[in-house]
């Protein structure tokens, strides 16, 4: 079983509600689910869609073909009907669309009328739609009604029952009318967790003891702030909406200086405004974590779409030289654990750390059995209370063996915590002399960098362990690359090298990935951008030149068949 459902329509028609509800039903049914969203920078109208793929086998990408299209408007039909598989169905409401389609793959369900009749109001039309999709799939409504109970708890019995009836009506109607529906779903299993990239980053931050989050709203990172605010009383993470991104990062630095773990989040345009603050974090050795959600640029670009176009920017942003940590998760699970690790390393080494993601990972939902919470790291590296008070003397930027100076919490002891954006001495006071400068650069940069590099995990190799074809990628392309490799590995000795911890660039001690690359007949770098930024990075770090490149820069993610096709073309000559 491997079905894809697409819900299409205008912004504001409830695409998200329908999509979220269906994916929840599938994940609770124990299926593997992958969803991705495509929407415009507007609140009403236009054309958006929500694509859900579910299967009894793991799925981690969207496919070109769809089995069920829920068309909330005419545009969805003419835009997507050619994507329908044979045996696939387009379900719609001829009264709302003011058009009747006679062809056999169309199923006309009067969402609106059924909502009024059964639920008593047309606002339940979306529930009818959900019910009918489940009917088409031959699934019962048990899970759905539980979900409806949760969703409308606050609204009371009345509303719940009305929605249940609406769902039932859609369900029964579909079963009765959809004669051509031949879908058959696998037996249910234990519920899986369904989580998106931004949610995983937010919970990951909490797991790492993040206490302060300041940001200015910007797609695709806003979800982190919204989630933390939805949990404000449980988590107690103080979220402050700043007046601009400059304030956002400087507030986070203030919070960090004052003694808590702090984070900010934004997208390229907002990060551009944080660059000076990034440099400040480096000079004052103030830990901070930055969640940077990429979207197509330059400038405002495509505000709600996806691209991997900010890699080199994140790596080189800010004046002056300092170590930085950059992680590029490929799944919500990786996002969760890498965010946790980012906080740990940022504080341990007193450097800025990035979670570099993109709109595709931010909004995509994945299913997991569970996250292994054993792997969560938490250690408080700050110098507080008694430990701080008991010190004989204290210098915020003291020269040490490993370059790490004690990070005292101001006010906890009589020792003063002094830091400065100017070059400074051990105590944190302004200096002008060459000797101190040289020692400070050695401390801040040259001593710490190799130590941080030791903490970096090598890339993940998937597939053949002695491959003739190596496909390389980073970040959000993980899922689609993995499935593409699965698909191709039958015919060929192929493997996939995925980088999630890219700065400092991983050593080859733990795993000699360079050997893998050098040993292959053909190496291909796949990136969601126009210039091959990761390939450039790999060359400057390792000298390796990829033989082939697959790039996409239309603001959309790679679809499975599309990528397989491109890979086939590249490796054809082998």
């Amino acid at each position, binding site marked *: 079983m491997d079905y894809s459902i697409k819900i299409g329509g205008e912004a504001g028609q409830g695409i998200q509600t329908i999509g979220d509800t269906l994916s929840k039903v599938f*994940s*609770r049914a124990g299926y593997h689910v992958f969803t991705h969203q495509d929407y415009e920078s507007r609140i009403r109208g236009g054309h958006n869609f929500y694509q859900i793929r579910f299967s009894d086998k793991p799925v981690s990408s969207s496919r070109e073909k769809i089995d069920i299209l829920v068309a909330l408007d005419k545009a969805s039909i003419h835009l997507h009907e050619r994507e329908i598989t044979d045996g696939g169905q387009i379900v719609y409401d001829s009264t709302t669309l003011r058009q009747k389609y006679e062809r056999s793959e169309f199923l006309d369900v009067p969402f609106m009328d059924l909502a009024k009749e059964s639920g008593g109001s047309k606002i339940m039309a979306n529930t009818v739609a959900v019910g009918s999709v489940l009917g088409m799939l031959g699934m019962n409504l048990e899970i759905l009604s539980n979900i409806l109970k949760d969703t409308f708890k606050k609204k009371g019995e009345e509303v719940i029952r009305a929605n249940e009836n609406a769902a039932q009506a859609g369900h029964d109607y579909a079963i009765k009318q959809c004669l051509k529906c031949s879908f058959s779903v696998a037996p249910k299993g234990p519920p*899986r*967790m*369904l*989580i998106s990239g931004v*949610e995983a980053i937010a*919970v990951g931050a*909490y*797991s790492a003891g993040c*206490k*302060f989050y*300041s940001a200015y709203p910007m797609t695709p990172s806003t979800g982190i702030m919204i989630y933390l605010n939805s*949990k*404000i*009383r*449980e*988590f*107690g993470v*103080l979220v*402050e909406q*700043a*007046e*601009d991104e*400059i*304030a*956002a990062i*400087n*507030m986070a*630095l*203030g*919070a*960090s*200086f*004052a*003694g*808590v773990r*702090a984070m900010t989040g934004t997208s390229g345009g907002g990060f551009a405004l944080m660059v*000076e*603050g990034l440099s*400040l974090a480096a000079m*004052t050795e103030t830990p901070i974590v930055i969640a940077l959600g990429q979207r197509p640029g330059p400038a405002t670009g495509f505000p709600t779409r996806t691209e991997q176009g900010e890699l080199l920017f994140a790596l080189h942003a800010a004046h002056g030289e300092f170590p930085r940590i950059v992680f590029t998760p490929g799944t919500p699970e990786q996002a969760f654990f890498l965010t946790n690790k980012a906080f740990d390393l940022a504080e341990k080494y007193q450097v800025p750390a990035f979670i570099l993601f993109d709109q595709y990972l931010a909004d995509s939902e994945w299913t997991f059995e569970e996250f292994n*919470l054993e792997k*969560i790291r*938490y250690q408080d590296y700050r110098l507080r209370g008694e430990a701080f008070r008991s010190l004989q003397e204290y210098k915020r930027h003291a020269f040490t063996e490993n370059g790490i100076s004690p990070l005292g*919490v*101001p*006010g906890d002891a*009589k*020792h*003063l*915590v*002094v*830091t*400065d*954006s*100017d070059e400074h001495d051990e105590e*944190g*006071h*302004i200096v002008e002399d060459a000797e101190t400068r040289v020692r400070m650069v050695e401390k801040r940069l040259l001593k710490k960098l190799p130590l941080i590099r030791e903490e970096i995990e090598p890339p993940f190799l998937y597939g053949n362990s002695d491959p003739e074809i190596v496909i390389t990628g980073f970040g959000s392309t993980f899922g689609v690359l993995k499935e593409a490799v699965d698909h191709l590995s039958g015919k060929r000795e192929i493997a996939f090298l995925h980088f999630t911890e890219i700065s400092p660039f991983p050593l080859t001690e733990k795993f000699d990935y360079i050997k893998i690359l050098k040993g292959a007949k053909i190496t291909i770098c796949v990136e969601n951008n126009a210039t091959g930024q990761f390939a450039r990075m790999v060359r400057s770090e390792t000298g390796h030149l990829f033989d082939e490149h697959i790039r996409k820069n239309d603001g959309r993610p790679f679809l499975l068949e599309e990528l397989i096709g491109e890979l086939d073309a590249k490796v054809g000559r082998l």
Partner: protein
Amino acid sequence: MPKLEDYRGQIPAWCPGCGNFGILKTFKEALVELEIEPYQIIIVSGIGQAGKLPHYLKCNTFNGLHGRTLPVATGIRLTNHEMLVIAVAGDGDCYGEGGNHLLHAMRRNINVKLFVHDNQIYGLTKGQASPTSMEGMVTKNQPFGVLSEQLNPVALGVALDCSFVARSFSGDGEHLKEMMKQAIKHKGFALLDIFQPCVVFNKVNTHEWYKQRVYHIEPEYNPEDRIEAFKRALEWGDRIPIGVIYRNNRPIMEERIPIIKDSPLLRQPLDASKTETALREFY
């Protein structure tokens, strides 16, 4: 009981005769008289001659970027609202580069004190006009004289309903000390604009110039009357009022955030179990 010596810091890199020396001296006295120990305060300063001040006394210090003192100070206060947090900035720093943060810090009414060393010039960068430079003043970078209308920080404060707005003069130590004390004691965001002669680059607004013009606001004056305050704020020219121009008792931001009511954010432990609880909701 702190003593003045406890506050002796590095040797100032300011010019002989600079108004900043008066501010530094008075500031130390105010802190000592308020019985505040160096470790009990955090000074956030920017870049400029004013921004160097924390190095010249003793205190916890975050000498950050030009123009960004207030966001840093806000982050500190939200994290540890038991500390006294003072932002020290130049006129270019907080009215020019950092103007936006001032607007929003006043709106938040975060309990931070902003002391502005207002020399009506960019000192450290050698004499370009600042937002408070007077119209017509000619500089190397304003060959036709300053064309923009002088920014009036006090009127701005009144318009934004800033909870404490005062002005003083580095040359009037007693008055300045009193203003500093009141600003520190006031519960809420406090803007204290301090006239500070720059003896090298500002040949218009000299020590004498200020001395001849500033007058103490009479005791009967009621700083809680916003309209009167606005009138006072507009006084400029031969007579310039110094003192508390406007004051109100708006609640401070720190007290309006339920999650830090009982204890500062800094003191709140991490409850690891909640990670699991949160993740469970995704099933």
